[in-house]
């Protein structure tokens, strides 16, 4: 355990080192004037832009909107995906009927949905929920179906031998066994959800980080644009942390059994 800690600390340092390298390279490019300063502001200017947006409160409210939309969308998409996967596992004919629908809906880009959905759903939370769910439900669903189908026969037979009902086998044996794979799907879904929300906000043009990005870009407030991109990247890290925490709760048995860190 001790050596493991040390590695973790070193890994943390590595991130800091590479972060410092970015800042130094960025700053030297900016101050050498290789790129017009208007387009490539210094770190200080970006930090100032960040501070201005924090002070005016627009960043905080946009950030809260964006991340809550993504979180609500992913949470409901995961629940729906798992539910559909369970349905597909109980009724194979449902799975077969759902397959062509999934194959056709999956490749639709979120951007293409926005203009049409605005008319039907307005600019409120319904729009974002619809778009995020339609885009992110597939990874948990597909992984769930595959994982539920591949639960080992021995485990199911053991459950039957213990006199568990079909429902109990599903809840106590199959779902926990499928959770690690489902969470791999949710992890992927969470990264697409942020993309979908930002795209939708850019196109719907009402509020949120995506809207703020477009508005600052058209107002040629370049330092603010870079600061917002940084916030977008940090959002990805936040989502990852939340999903990893949940995975530890619901699928932690796997990491504990195989002895690997999450």
């Amino acid at each position, binding site marked *: 355990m001790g050596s493991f800690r040390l590695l973790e600390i070193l890994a943390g340092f*590595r*991130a800091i*080192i*590479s*972060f410092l*390298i*970015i800042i130094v390279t960025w700053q030297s490019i900016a101050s050498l004037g290789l790129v017009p300063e208007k*387009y490539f502001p210094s770190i200080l200017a970006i930090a100032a832009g960040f501070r201005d947006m924090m002070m005016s409160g627009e960043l905080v409210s946009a950030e809260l909107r964006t991340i809550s939309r993504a979180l609500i969308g992913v949470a409901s998409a995961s629940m729906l995906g798992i539910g559909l996967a369970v349905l597909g596992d109980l009724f194979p*004919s*449902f799975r*077969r*009927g*759902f*397959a*062509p*629908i999934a*194959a*056709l*809906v*999956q*490749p*639709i*880009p*979120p*951007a*293409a*949905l926005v*203009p*049409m959905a*605005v*008319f*039907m759903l307005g600019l409120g939370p319904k729009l974002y929920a619809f778009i995020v769910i339609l885009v992110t439900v597939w990874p948990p669903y597909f992984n769930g179906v595959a994982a539920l189908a591949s639960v080992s026969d021995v485990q199911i037979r053991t459950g039957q031998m213990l006199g568990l009902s079909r429902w109990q086998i599903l809840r106590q044996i199959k779902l926990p066994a499928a959770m690690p794979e489902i969470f791999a799907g949710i992890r992927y879904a969470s*990264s697409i959800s*942020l*993309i979908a929300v*930002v*795209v939708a906000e*850019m*196109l719907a043009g009402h509020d949120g980080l*995506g809207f703020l*990005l*477009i508005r*600052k*870009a058209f107002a040629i407030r*370049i330092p603010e*644009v*870079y600061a*917002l*991109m940084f916030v*977008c*990247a*940090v*959002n*990805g*890290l936040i*989502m*990852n942390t939340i999903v990893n925490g949940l995975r530890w709760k619901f699928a932690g048995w796997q990491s504990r059994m195989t002895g690997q860190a999450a």
Partner: protein
Amino acid sequence: MSILRSRQGYSALVLPVVLLLAWQVLAWRASTPLFPGPWQVAVSIWRLYPQIVGQIGYTLMRAAAGFFVAAIVMVPLGILLGRLKAVGSVLEPILDMLATLPPPAVVPIVMLFAGTGDAAKIAVIAYAAGIPLIMNTYEASKTLHPMATLVARSLRLRRLETMVFIDLPASLPMIATGVRLAVASALLVSVTAEMLLATNGIGVFLQRQQENFQIANGLAAIAFISMVGLIVNDLVQRLERRLLFWHYRSTETQNDR
């Protein structure tokens, strides 16, 4: 046996048909052009398909250009980073961070440097396709079997030769996964980029339909996008199976044992 199979075929059709009918009924009850049913969409497809196919052609060309730019830059870079461990491990967190940045968020910056022409759109697509490519290539060449390196050394290959003849082929199966993700995201992002940086392409077509309140036409375009996405993704998978037959053959025989 054949009866059983045809019955299974029917049951697979039931759900889509029921959904289409439900949609049609809802559309009838709403009876507004803002909520068209599948029938109106089919009519739009019939009326507009030459135009839609033409616009999708532009979109696909741009997606392909972006993808190839990304592949030419990112695959060699990924192998290089995997080989030069020190550089790779320092740059890895940067890659992780870029991977969490949604591709549309780079649009405003690209707009500054490249305007709103084809170059800008191709740059955004290349960024979106490049991230999965470099992540997978880097991961593959980093975790290469140590034996491969030893073989390279005993053959007295130079560094560049090792990268071309050993690292690249050995990383191909994982690069293929990256290619699959990259193609999918190139298609997604090309539509988005067109909507934000408008000139032509299916994204612009969609927006024009929205501005004219022609929802059925828009849904017709979406149907085409989804068909094209389905076909392209399927082609990529087939191509991967054909080109990497040696990889699949070896994993299959391993499973047989």
